């Protein structure tokens, strides 16, 4: 399944744009700031109904315009089907997602139909940013295929918010009523254990795949590891909540639970990659995470996600690029989009690896 055609109207820097793509490797070239990433983001919209970068659709409308529209044509050669997908957003109105002219009742009905993975220069945030980014990255993957997990996660977060509100009120009124706290705890505990077990199982499942990708990308150089870290490994949820209860009341929020979980990323045997990894090693790490996500989605859906590789050549050293292109050349991936500022470099490098491809020049809006 791949994207055959895209048309943009007033999307970000584009007044209008139209391209026909091939089902394999598509190179997007153009000078800096001409909108290569924006084109990839439009493709992201067609899959996830939203931007990869900005939470607000209003920022995706071209300056001084009232609305944007993205039209895409997806084909599935195995099922011999063609679907027209469109995403339109008008200032002050709600976003409309359509499949073959028919509007989706809920955006969530569309998400997952055309799986996609974006590899972006910003991916290093998952290594260097706060633990919430890592939790979110893994939670999104798990909940894509486990709606029960998603429901548990949402309920858990709501309960924590309600519990925190009680803690704050207790603090203000100096009236420490435990009965409500107890009711929230009784509901949190089973949910917390379930989330904990699912996160643990997910890391165990994805770790060998991840290690394999990392060693392929780095040329088998160094060991890496992901360790899921949760307070629930050290003591029971009940004990944990009891032990932090005084601090909870003083600070007005809950200090123990799976909302404090983290994933530790190691290089060598036990060195945090955040501090000890080179830029190249960190790049390989985040890229291997994304590619593991590719495998996971493929194993669950038997569909190969569309792979968007944004500006990867600038940050990866030639050796790692070579290993990545070996992977692309092996044809394990489905449709791939690669953006680069230098069209000659991209053309050369893809030829070198005997990767059939088409190049699209953003500046001239033409196929090369």
């Amino acid at each position, binding site marked *: 399944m791949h994207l055959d055609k895209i048309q943009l109207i007033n999307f970000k820097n584009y007044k209008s744009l139209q391209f026909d793509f091939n089902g394999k490797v598509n190179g997007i070239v153009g000078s800096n700031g001409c909108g290569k990433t924006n084109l990839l983001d439009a493709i992201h919209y067609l899959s996830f109904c939203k931007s990869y970068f900005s939470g607000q659709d209003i920022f995706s409308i071209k300056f001084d315009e009232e609305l944007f529209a993205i039209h895409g044509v997806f084909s599935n050669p195995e099922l011999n089907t063609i679907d027209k997908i469109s995403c339109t957003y008008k200032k002050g109105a709600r976003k409309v997602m359509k499949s073959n002219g028919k509007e989706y009742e809920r955006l969530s009905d569309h998400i997952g139909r055309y799986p996609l993975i974006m590899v972006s220069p910003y991916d290093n945030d998952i290594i260097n940013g706060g633990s919430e980014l890592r939790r979110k990255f893994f939670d999104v993957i798990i909940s894509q295929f486990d709606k029960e997990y998603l429901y548990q996660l949402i*309920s858990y977060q*709501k309960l924590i*918010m*309600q519990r925190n509100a009680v803690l704050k009120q207790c603090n203000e009124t100096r009236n420490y009523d435990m009965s*409500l706290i107890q*009711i*929230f705890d009784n*509901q949190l505990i*089973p*949910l917390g254990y379930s989330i904990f077990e699912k996160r643990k199982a997910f890391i165990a499942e994805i770790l060998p795949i991840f290690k394999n990708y990392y060693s392929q990308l780095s040329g088998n150089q160094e060991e890496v590891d992901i360790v899921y870290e949760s307070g629930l490994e050290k003591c029971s949820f009940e004990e944990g909540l009891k032990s932090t209860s005084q601090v909870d009341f003083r600070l007005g929020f809950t200090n123990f639970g799976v909302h404090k979980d983290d994933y530790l990323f190691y290089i060598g045997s036990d060195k945090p990659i955040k501090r000890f990894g080179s830029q190249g090693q960190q790049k390989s790490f985040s890229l291997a995470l994304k590619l593991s996500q590719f495998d996971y989605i493929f194993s669950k859906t038997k569909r190969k996600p569309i792979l968007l590789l944004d500006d990867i050549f600038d940050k990866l050293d030639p050796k790692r690029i070579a290993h990545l292109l070996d992977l692309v050349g092996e044809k394990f991936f489905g449709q791939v989009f690669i953006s680069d500022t230098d069209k000659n470099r991209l053309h050369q490098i893809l030829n070198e690896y005997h990767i059939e491809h088409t190049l699209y020049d953003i500046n001239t809006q033409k196929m090369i």
Partner: protein
Amino acid sequence: MIQNFSKILDKAIEEIAKLPGIGRRTALRLALHLHQLENIEVEQLLSAISRLKSELHTCQECHNLSDTPVCTICTNPKRNHQLICVVQDIRDVIAIEATHQFNGVYHVLGGIISPINGIGPEQLTLEHLFEKINNNPVEEVILALPTTVEGDTTNFFIYQNISDKVKVVSTIARGIGVGEELEFTDEVTLGRSLIGRTNFETAYSKNN
């Protein structure tokens, strides 16, 4: 939308626009319409609104709306007073009555526990419910609250306070979509889930 020529019209628009779901444009349309009405029609409307405030009571027994101090459901001897259905608000009473599947009486909480929104147990009619059950033990209490985190929290709170005085505490069957509000559930589904209600304790342990 503010006119320069009439302070009276402005004031009318301002008041009407305070109503839920009414913007200033609609408020203007309604104000002009009201101005066109016959005197008698305006008086009828005014009196209806005014009686809504002065003569409509909340039932002393169940906190449902009523023209009399105690509502017609609570005073109906044919209804089963050993069966109390606990609901969030009056709209739920109307929804459940429309199913014709329920012959017990109600207790309207006036909300559900949500500390984020400043609603603790003491803001609701919970104390009265516990007092009623303490003084007059009943056979069964049905918890018909929304299947949300806040609904569940309220269920637990009630259960903790009444479980030793009531033979059966049940909750409406979770055939209702998780997270859906009772008011928006169609009558058939709601009727069925009342018949297929489940014991609260077992329902909760099944769900988690």
